[in-house]
């Protein structure tokens, strides 16, 4: 399968990428690692007429200690997130989950910014950034802005990014000694999660779900119950509340709801959250 024909431009800077997006509008797409976009283009589910390749902007590949948070360049590959010492120490949930994305070959190409910009509810890392209450830094013709993860995922494959905005950085708070868990349920190695759970403990536990709606979704009822002192089991029983689980070849909505409750229960046990 070969994508429909398009024109290709390699951006030499973020500003040039923004200008190219501005000039070509809705017909243009950014290309980073290409591991979300190129498969869609091969299936003709996406047919952009211009690809703006930002893959060579090495200045957007970094992990930086920013005090209470860790800042990660938008083009940092999953492989580099997985193996980064700073993240493994201070945000182990993100490093561990990055190591569960796809397979080694995919992790050598796919990027954190690309995964978030794609906004797929079945992807692992959007839910992780939600659970961590991270934020996304976007730069466009109007300048730079910081978008909370809670405000970022809008609809199926639709985010708060404007057509000419580039994700330059992702910021996640350090989680210190808080427990964490990433649960990914699938039938075959390397598959997308049928349901996944990202959870982090501490004073304000964060729990988010993979593939339980049209966007990555926060398990708000679980978090609220934990704040009010519920047991892990009672909180986990609320995991499917407020979700809109999809139906596909892998699972019915009811099965996904069941999985969400079971997996959140496992995650909370691993995190050590909830009254015992």
């Amino acid at each position, binding site marked *: *399968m*070969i*994508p*429909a*024909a*398009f*024109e*290709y*431009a*390699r*951006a*030499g800077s973020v500003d*040039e990428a923004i*200008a*190219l997006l501005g*000039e*070509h509008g809705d017909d243009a797409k950014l*290309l980073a690692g*290409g*591991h979300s976009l*190129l*498969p869609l283009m*091969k299936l003709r589910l996406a047919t952009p007429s*211009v*690809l*703006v*390749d930002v*893959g060579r902007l090495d200045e957007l590949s970094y992990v930086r200690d920013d005090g209470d948070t860790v800042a990660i360049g938008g083009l940092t590959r999953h*492989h580099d997130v997985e193996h980064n010492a700073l993240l493994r120490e201070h945000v182990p949930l993100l490093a561990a989950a990055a190591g569960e994305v*796809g*397979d*080694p*070959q*995919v992790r*050598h*190409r796919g990027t954190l910014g690309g995964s978030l910009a794609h906004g797929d509810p079945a992807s692992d890392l959007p839910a992780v950034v939600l659970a961590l209450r991270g934020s996304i830094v976007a730069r466009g013709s109007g300048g730079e802005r910081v978008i909370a993860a809670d405000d970022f995922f809008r609809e199926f494959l639709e985010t708060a990014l404007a057509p000419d905005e580039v994700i330059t950085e992702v910021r996640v708070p350090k989680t210190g000694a808080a427990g964490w868990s990433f649960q990914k349920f699938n039938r075959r*190695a*390397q598959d997308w999660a049928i349901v996944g759970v990202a959870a982090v403990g501490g004073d304000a536990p964060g729990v988010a779900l993979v593939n339980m709606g049209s966007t990555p979704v926060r398990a708000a009822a679980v978090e609220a119950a934990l704040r009010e002192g519920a047991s892990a089991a009672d909180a986990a029983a609320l995991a499917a509340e407020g979700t809109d689980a999809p139906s596909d070849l892998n699972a019915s909505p009811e099965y996904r709801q069941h999985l969400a409750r079971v997996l959140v229960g496992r995650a909370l046990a691993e995190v050590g959250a909830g009254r015992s």
Partner: protein
Amino acid sequence: MTTPMSEVAVAITVNGIVTEHEVEARTLLVQYLRETVGLTGTNIGCDSTSCGACTVLLDGESVKSCTVLAAQVDGRSVTTIEGLADGDALHPMQAAFREHHGLQCGYCTPGMVMAAVSLAQEGGPLSEDAVRKGLEGNLCRCTGYHNIVAAVRAGSADMAGAAS
């Protein structure tokens, strides 16, 4: 500002030799290797980033060449299965696959070997668990995994020994 082009001039080092061609922007790396350069050792299996038959090394790291554009690789270095052996002397990972009969029909083998070389370079001598997890991106439809795992473990030990 760069003008978007439907044809792209690329210079890609393949197995140590610089190849220069004008290609359609949509040309996949695997097509470039097989059809433009004429190296058909890299197989196309699922063509959808799943099976790993098309795995090659990009600057030393395993990638699925069905999901990379030739244009993205301009100026970089690719190693295919044809570039592993040193003349008649098999690469340690190739030799381990032969020694342990890590193949049945052989279709997945070039991708398996390339993925295994990348894995061994990153992880030194590999445990069985590390091999099984590390080869998640490579499917063998003959279900020959047992011998493949044994081959990759042996090959990774040989590579680590050769490096030290």
